[in-house]
C-alpha cells in the first residue's frame, strides 16, 4: 500500500519545482496584471478600482500609440529583410561550397552577442562626430547623418541593427530546412529542363514554408518585445521617435510608478503576442496538414 502511494505521488513531486516556480512567477503575475490593469495601483500608494479608465486612457495616449507605431515600423523594417537575406544566404551556403563553417560562423556571430554589447558597438558606429559610418560618408564627400540623434533616422538606424542581429537566426533555420530537402527533386526538375532559379522558386520556397512561417512568428514576437537597443542607445528619443511598447511599460511603471496604467499597457502587449501565436497555431497546423 505504502509503495503504491509512493509511486502515485512521485510524478507530482518530480514536476513540483517547475510547477511551483511557474505558478508563482508566471501564473499569479498573469492574474495580477489583469487585475491591476483595472486599478490605479502605484508602488507608492495602494490603488483602488478604476474600471476601464486605464484602457480608455490608453487609446487616447498619443505617446503610447506612437510607441505602438514605432514598434510596428521596427517589426516590418527589421523582420522582412532578416528573412529575405537569411533565405538567399542559406540557399548559397547550401550549394555544395567549401568553407561552410567559416561562412556560417561569420554570419551567425552577431546572435551570440548580448543586446547591450550590440548597442554599445553600434552606438560607436553611428556616432555623429567620430563614428566610422560618418567617416565613410565624409570620405565619399557625402553629408554625415545624425543616425541616432535625428528623429527622422533614429528608428531606421535601430532597425538596421535589428537586421544585423536577426539574420543569422533565419539563416540557420533555413539552412537546416534546405539540408532536409532531397536532391532527387532538383535532379528531376533539371531533367524536365527547369533552370536553377525556376526550381528554387517552384520547389525550394514552397518546401521551406514551415521554416518561413516559424522564423516569421519567432522574429515577430521578438521584435514586439524590442527593448535593450532602445533603452541603451536612445532611451526612446529623440522626440520619442524610438519609444517602443516595452520601453513605455518600463517607463510608466518604474519611472512614473503608475503600475496600474502600465498593467493595461502590458495587457496590450500580451494580447498582440497571443493573437500572433494563435494565428501561428491555426496556419501552422494547416501547413502541416497540406
Amino acid at each position, binding site marked *: 500500500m505504502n509503495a503504491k502511494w509512493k509511486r502515485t505521488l512521485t510524478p507530482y513531486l518530480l514536476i513540483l519545482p517547475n510547477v511551483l516556480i511557474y505558478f508563482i512567477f508566471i501564473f499569479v503575475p498573469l492574474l495580477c496584471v489583469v487585475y491591476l490593469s483595472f486599478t490605479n495601483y502605484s508602488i507608492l500608494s495602494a490603488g483602488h478600482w478604476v474600471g476601464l479608465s486605464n484602457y480608455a486612457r490608453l487609446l487616447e495616449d498619443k505617446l503610447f500609440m506612437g510607441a505602438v507605431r514605432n514598434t510596428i515600423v521596427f517589426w516590418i523594417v527589421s523582420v522582412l529583410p532578416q528573412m529575405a537575406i537569411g533565405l538567399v544566404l542559406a540557399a548559397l551556403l547550401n550549394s555544395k561550397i567549401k568553407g561552410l563553417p567559416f561562412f*556560417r560562423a561569420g554570419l551567425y*556571430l552577431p546572435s551570440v552577442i548580448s543586446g*547591450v554589447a550590440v548597442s554599445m*558597438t553600434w552606438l560607436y558606429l553611428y556616432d555623429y562626430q567620430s563614428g566610422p559610418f560618418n567617416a565613410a560618408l565624409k570620405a565619399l564627400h557625402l553629408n554625415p547623418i545624425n543616425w541616432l540623434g535625428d528623429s527622422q533616422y533614429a528608428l531606421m538606424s535601430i532597425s538596421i541593427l535589428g537586421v544585423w542581429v536577426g539574420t543569422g537566426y533565419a539563416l540557420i533555420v533555413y539552412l537546416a530546412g534546405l539540408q532536409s530537402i532531397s536532391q532527387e527533386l532538383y535532379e528531376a526538375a533539371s531533367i524536365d529542363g527547369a533552370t536553377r532559379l525556376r526550381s528554387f522558386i517552384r520547389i525550394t520556397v514552397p518546401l521551406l514554408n514551415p521554416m518561413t512561417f516559424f522564423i516569421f512568428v519567432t522574429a515577430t514576437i521578438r521584435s514586439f518585445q524590442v527593448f*535593450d537597443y532602445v533603452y541603451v542607445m536612445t532611451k526612446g528619443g529623440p522626440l520619442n521617435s524610438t519609444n517602443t511598447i516595452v520601453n513605455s*511599460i518600463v517607463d510608466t*511603471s518604474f519611472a512614473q510608478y503608475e503600475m496600474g496604467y502600465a498593467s493595461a499597457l502590458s495587457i496590450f502587449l500580451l494580447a498582440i503576442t497571443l493573437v500572433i501565436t494563435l494565428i501561428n497555431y491555426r496556419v501552422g497546423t494547416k501547413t502541416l496538414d497540406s
Partner: protein
Amino acid sequence: MKKAGATKSLIYVFLIVITLLNLVPVVVMIFTSLKSNDELVSGSFSLLPKHWMFDNYRQAMESGNWALYFKNSFVVTVVVTAGSLLFNTLAGYTFARIRFRGSTMIFVCLLAGMMVPAQSIVVPQFIIMKSIPLFGHNDIWGQGGTGWLNTYFALIIPALSGSIGIFMARQFYASFPKDLDEAGYMDGLGYLGTYLRIYLPLSGPLMATLGILKIVSVWNEFFQPLIFTNTESMRTIQLALSLFKGEFTIQYNLLMAATVLVSLPMLAAFLLFQKQFVGSVVSSGVKG
C-alpha cells in the same frame, strides 16, 4: 561546365564579401578598444589603431568593480543553467515516461507559459519579488522590506523554470523504447532512480542543447537584472556595461574594451562549439 565554374566563383566572392561586411561591427569593436584617446578625437578614421593601447583594458576594468560584476554574472549563469537543466529534464522525463492523472492538462498549462512575454508580467513580478515573506527585512506578510529584490534569488529562481526546456526534454525522452522503464522497474528502481540511473546517462545531447541555449540567454540577460536589482553589489556585467556610458563623456576606446570583455566568453564558446550552437538553435526551432 565553364559557366558552372564561373557561377561558383561568383557565389564565393559574394559570400566572402557579405561575411566580411557582417563582421565589420565586431572587428571595429575590437580595434577601437585598442586605440588611444588622441586618435579617437582626431576625427580621421582608420580601422587599425596607430598605437596599440592594451592598457585600455586595465583602465576599463578599473572604472568599476568589474571583478564583482563578472562574479555575479558567473554565479547566476552557473546556478541557473545547472538548476534548470535538472528541473526541466526531470519534468520532461516525467511527462514523457510516466502516466499520471492530470499530466496532459498540467503539461499544456506549462507550455502556455511560453507564450507569455516576460515584459508583460514584469509589474506584478516586481511586486511579488518585493513581497516575499521573511526576506529582505520583510515581515511574515511580506511587508516592510525589499523581499527578493537585490538578491540572487530574483535573478535565479524564476529562470529555473522553462517551458521550452520542458518541451524539448519531453520530446527527447519520448523517443526511447519502453524496455528501459521496465528494466528500471525490474531492478527495483523508483521513478527518480530510473531517471538518474538510466535516462540521465543517455541525456548528453539534450543537456548540450538546453545548456547552450540557457547559458547564452542568462549571460546576455539585461531586462531582469535591470528591473529586479539596483545595488552595485548585485550588478551583472550586462547592467554594468549599460551604465558604462554614463560614467564619462563617452570614451569609446574604454567602452569598447568593456564591450569586448563582456562579449568574449560567448564569442569564444561559439567559435569553439559552433556545431553544437547551431544544432541547439535548430532543434529548439524546427522540432519545437
